[in-house]
């Protein structure tokens, strides 16, 4: 297939969270095939790396005017991409993270494509949710997962289930319409804290997590009590995500169905009797087996 026969005019790819190592082969191959690549990712070395894949890379960072309203910024991003796609398709919009995870320019590009008869392809990337689950060792299979954008949570007064793990994205910039990466509005953060306290106790431990933006850095994970959330968020990075563990595990409501799901022959664990005298040991840690009574 030649470049002009590609099945899209605009490819939208996600670049992942941790810089170049998280760019997928699929995203790379897509960018190689496009005439122009527009990049919205301020990660160290990302734009430079993309220039090794494509001779025409436009870094959209200069459009992110500090203090400006976020919506015009996103419109400018989308305008550059769509305008180039009309002139010299195919083009690529390469964005931080995952292309449909809190990425409004992607929405604008898709909507304008409908009007302008442009074909769009979406290529997934490693999202902030993916890295968060790894950073915290969380598997949504256990207790489920609810996920909301912080401002959306407040303006819609969305109900929360406190027996389900909860991810609140963009918490540090809640209720702030402007592009102000370093600014934290204590009053806005207090609004978020007060709303969450309608569903969770003040002493509930929550987690502020910031995934590593570079392979040489560790993720930042900080526990705070919900009653001190606003104070914790004041100190946090712009990309910090709030994770709220469940307050309690929901009880099984359909015991018959649950029983049906058990593995065949599974019986409650009984204490082993006369299994031998050799107790398995672990250097520097308690032995494996029943705990010895304290003398």
């Amino acid at each position, binding site marked *: 297939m030649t470049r002009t026969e590609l099945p899209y005019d605009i490819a939208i790819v996600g670049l992942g969270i941790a810089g170049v190592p998280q760019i997928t082969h699929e995203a790379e191959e897509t960018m190689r095939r496009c005439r122009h690549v527009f990049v919205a990712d301020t990660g160290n070395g990302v734009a430079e790396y993309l220039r090794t894949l494509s001779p025409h890379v436009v870094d959209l960072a200069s459009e992110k005017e500090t203090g400006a309203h976020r919506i015009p910024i996103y419109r400018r991003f989308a305008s550059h991409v769509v305008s180039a796609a009309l002139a010299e398709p195919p083009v690529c919009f390469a964005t931080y993270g995952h292309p449909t995870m809190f990425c409004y320019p992607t929405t*604008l590009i898709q909507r304008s494509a*409908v*009007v302008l008869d442009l074909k769009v392809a979406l290529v997934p990337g490693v999202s902030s949710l993916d890295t968060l689950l790894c950073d915290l060792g969380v598997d949504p299979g256990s207790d489920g997962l609810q996920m909301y954008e912080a401002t959306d949570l407040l303006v819609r007064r969305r109900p929360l289930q406190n027996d389900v793990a909860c991810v609140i994205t963009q918490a540090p910039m809640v209720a702030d319409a402007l592009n102000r990466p370093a600014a934290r509005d204590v009053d806005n953060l207090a609004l978020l804290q007060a709303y969450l306290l309608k569903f969770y106790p003040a002493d509930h431990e929550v987690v502020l997590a910031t995934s590593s933006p570079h392979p040489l850095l560790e993720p930042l994970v900080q526990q705070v009590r919900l009653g001190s959330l606003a104070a914790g968020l004041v100190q946090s990075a712009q990309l910090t995500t709030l994770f709220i563990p469940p307050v309690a595990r929901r009880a099984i409501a359909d015991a018959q169905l649950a029983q049906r799901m058990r593995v065949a022959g599974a019986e409650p664990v009984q204490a082993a009797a006369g299994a031998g005298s050799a107790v398995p040991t672990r250097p520097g840690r308690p032995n494996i087996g029943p705990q010895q009574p304290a003398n």
Partner: protein
Amino acid sequence: MTPTPPIDIGVSPSVSPDPPAPGVVVRMPITFLGMAPGRPGFEPEEFIRDPAVVRSVQAIRAAPTDAERTAAVYQLMETLG
């Protein structure tokens, strides 16, 4: 980049009724957390009848330079969200 080539970008009524990349997101209410002036939803067949949209697309088609085309696309974006 080169000036806009003579391509048909599909103003009403020639625009396809089907989105080129069908997805839930394009039909969601046109607002972003209440920050953008919103319509109740995005129905392409209704949207392309809007005189502001028609003017934007005509301006896009007539733009002689990259900069003017990008400015015209921005006008369209203002109606999209």
